[in-house]
């Protein structure tokens, strides 16, 4: 039987390491809101760490992480030194923060927040997990301020799964912070403030703007902004939508609209909306609430964590972003075919998602082929994480950034419910894809190494059945247990 000495050497106990460093305040994201919070914290005499993932590694950008770059960054983004300098110069407040005593780490992402709570008590303290291009580590915090901004909302249509279909936030990043946009002529999808501002920025940066496409019958954004776009001779294609992006080996070459117009562009910029970046809050088990006027799912009340800037919710201008994007998703869905890709990483089509079908490398016997979202709904409300695991939509290396929101919209529409009736698939740490060698703890404690086991370390569990209660039992237990520690 078990040693019964009152200790379990293979339980988590105190094996999780203490953080490398501890700060009164950790701020994630060095945009205007994060910078302001960090500078204010330092002004109150707090030790403050401010991190920002920019410049993002080229490999991540290639996977559309964290924004929908659509393969339209220049090769300049591969030069890490140049990128660091460009990012630093693009934000004058960074220098002010450093002068105020804030410790600033660029090129550093926060991939998890871990707190003791329901289901976990083994942490020495609450920590935020970080990584840069060389390594991963954890730091402790007194206060955690999330200023992670907002990311691109993607909605698919025929041909969207090729280089040259990108998001408005990614374009802003490339134009205003990286000076690394590879496109020449863009078509912008949407006409709310985001789209209007994107058009004006692109024009200012010398990019040719072929027009804005709007599914509704009038421009949706601020009247003065719309007037500025008109004054810049940028046309609106109203009551219209992209029916197909047509391209070649380098991606998009032209776009055919529903109205029949064909527009020569090398880039389509999805500017229908932005999604507050709630990955860290969601992955840490924090609360999230749905607020259409503030961009969709936003953080709820989470003790000990303060969200500032766009990640707390977009500014409420009275515009219902969710209603607007649902209208777009409905229209682009109509323009799509059953084989239009929804999840680019896993190549899941609309038909396979709504049919709850397995990936193409698996057989589909008749009973499988007969299953669908409808049969699943008969068993109860559809669970997006269940559908994700069955269809693999959202299971790829972009971590669902390109399809999580449109999958939620498609499932809600298919279930004849409003957005939110089928919840968003959950986020999991690491909330950035990070290489094994970076994530790895190469300096783990002897206690962790010695206490490691494959599965619970209960020697009686693995004794062959026929040898239970025989003299051989003890021999097996000893031999099996000896090999567990590394």
């Amino acid at each position: 039987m078990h040693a019964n000495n009152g200790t379990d050497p293979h339980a988590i106990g105190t094996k999780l390491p203490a953080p490398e460093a501890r700060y009164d305040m950790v701020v994630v994201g060095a945009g205007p809101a994060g910078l302001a919070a960090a500078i204010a914290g330092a002004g109150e005499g707090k030790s403050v760490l401010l991190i920002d993932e920019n410049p993002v590694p080229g490999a991540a950008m290639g996977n559309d992480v964290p924004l929908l770059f659509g393969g339209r960054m220049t090769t300049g983004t591969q030069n890490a030194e140049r990128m660091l300098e460009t990012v630093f110069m693009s934000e004058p407040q960074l220098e002010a923060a450093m002068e105020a005593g804030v410790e600033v780490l660029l090129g550093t992402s926060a991939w998890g927040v871990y707190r003791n709570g329901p289901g976990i008590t083994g942490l020495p303290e609450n920590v935020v997990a970080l990584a840069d291009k060389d390594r991963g580590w954890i730091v402790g915090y007194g206060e955690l301020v999330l200023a992670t901004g907002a990311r691109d909302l993607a909605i698919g249509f025929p041909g969207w799964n090729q280089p040259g279909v990108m998001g408005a936030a990614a374009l802003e990043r490339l134009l205003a912070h990286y000076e690394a946009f590879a496109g020449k002529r863009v078509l912008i999808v949407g006409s709310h403030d985001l789209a209007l501002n994107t058009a004006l920025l692109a024009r200012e940066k010398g990019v040719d703007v072929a027009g804005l496409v709007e599914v509704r019958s009038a421009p949706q954004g601020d009247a003065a902004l719309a007037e500025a776009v008109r004054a810049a001779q940028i046309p609106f294609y109203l009551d219209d939508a992209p029916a197909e992006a047509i391209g070649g080996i380098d991606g998009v070459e032209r776009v055919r609209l529903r109205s029949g117009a064909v527009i020569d562009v090398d880039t389509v910029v999805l500017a229908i909306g932005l999604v507050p970046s709630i990955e860290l809050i969601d992955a840490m088990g924090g609360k999230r609430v749905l607020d259409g006027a503030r961009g969709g799912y936003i953080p709820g009340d989470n003790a000990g964590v303060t969200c500032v800037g766009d990640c707390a919710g977009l500014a409420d201008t009275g515009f219902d972003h969710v209603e607007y994007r649902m209208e777009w998703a409905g229209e682009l869905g109509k323009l799509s075919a059953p084989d239009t890709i929804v999840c680019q990483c896993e190549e899941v089509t609309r038909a396979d998602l709504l049919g709850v079908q397995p990936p193409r490398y698996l057989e589909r016997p008749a009973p499988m082929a007969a299953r669908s979202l409808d049969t699943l709904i008969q068993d109860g409300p559809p669970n997006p994480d269940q559908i994700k695991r069955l269809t693999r939509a959202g299971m790829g290396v972009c971590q669902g950034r390109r399809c999580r929101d449109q999958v939620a919209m498609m499932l809600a529409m298919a279930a004849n419910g409003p957005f939110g009736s089928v919840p968003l698939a959950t986020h999991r740490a690491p909330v950035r894809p990070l290489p094994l060698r970076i994530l790895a703890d190469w300096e783990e404690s002897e206690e962790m190494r010695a206490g490691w086991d494959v599965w619970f370390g209960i020697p009686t569990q693995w004794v062959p059945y026929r040898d239970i209660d025989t003299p051989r039992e003890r021999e097996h237990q000893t031999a099996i247990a000896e090999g567990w520690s590394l």
Partner: protein
Amino acid sequence: MTYVGMPTPRETPQETMAKIAGTAAKMKVVIVGGGVSGLSAGWWLARSGAEVTVLDKGIVGWEASGRNGGGASHYQSPLFEEEQRMWPHMDALLGYPTEHQQERLVIAVSPKQLNQYHYLAKMNNDMGYRVDLLSGDQVRAMVPLAGDNCLGGMHYRFGGHANPQRSVQAYAWALQDLGGRIVQHSPVTGFETEGGKVVAVHATSGRYECDAVVVAAGPQIQALMAKLGVEVPLAAARAEMIVTEPAPMMPIGGVDGNGLYGRQTLRGNLAYGGGPHEWLETLQAGPPARPSSPLTRNLARRVAELFPKAAHLNVIRSWAGIVENTPDGRPIIDRMGDPENVTVITMSGVGFGLSPASGHAVRDLVVDGQCSFTDIAKLSLSRFDGIGADWREQRGWQPAKPDIAA
């Protein structure tokens, strides 16, 4: 579709299906718990003609059944030969894909690991289950992601792995195709007994009359059976896994070692778990959360050591699951004396791979009162008679800080 490393099966699964057909006709069975053990039992019973209803507090396979390593190579179990006989046929029998793949490799990156694997290989070969020992070079030829640090390994000429969530859903759908009912979001609230039997199960969704009950509710078995006056000692704990982006496909995806369990999925992802667990309160309502921890980093390290040529691959998710363990870590598969129509099954944290066999055993207990294909007497609940109330404390299995864990 049999293994070179296993004794020849006594009959084909198809012959077994023909034999059991109609043996439980009109029998009303309520299964409490839509995890893999409950669903397999339900499927076997439906194959026998029973009218099966599965009640689950949430959705099928949502707990450990749908989020484990997917391994199916459990030579320690009395259900092992049945596990090996059934798995290669499960896709065809269920009518849905499970992603089952055959055979496994376990590879060592330390001398201590190699010694243990050699011991396990001999133990298996002594039992008549073939395991081949491999040199480091042989491993590198079979496992393209292995590195110069690999000292050798072993090749199970049996076993394998499958996709947990897909397999659980396959059982559930196959059960429905046989006329069974799956009632989700319906926690069981109590049992109605009469004359030493449970005659109905009460759930939030209603009252379900029954001739027999199977309690297969994982950690929640303890609280449910307490309602029937039966003490089932179980301790819940949290375990963690990580997964990478896809790697090029290896000829055998079932490769683990270096203190890890797991597999390369059919998509190519490397999905691995292992390492310290955290003991938790065993709650009647089920786990309030399934958080992962910075253990992700220790898992990443071990995967990178196991597969140095995959160290550049991105980790894209981590997750945790809550499993239950019995005091000796072995299953309880037992039909109760009182109430006599209740059968309990907990696989003590090792239930997914053995599910095709455990369902058969439960079917036999429910319908015939005894297991037809193997001895499972040592898995009876009575072995824990008289176990002290402090059995968790004696083992150091109590939650570290109960106030927070609850």
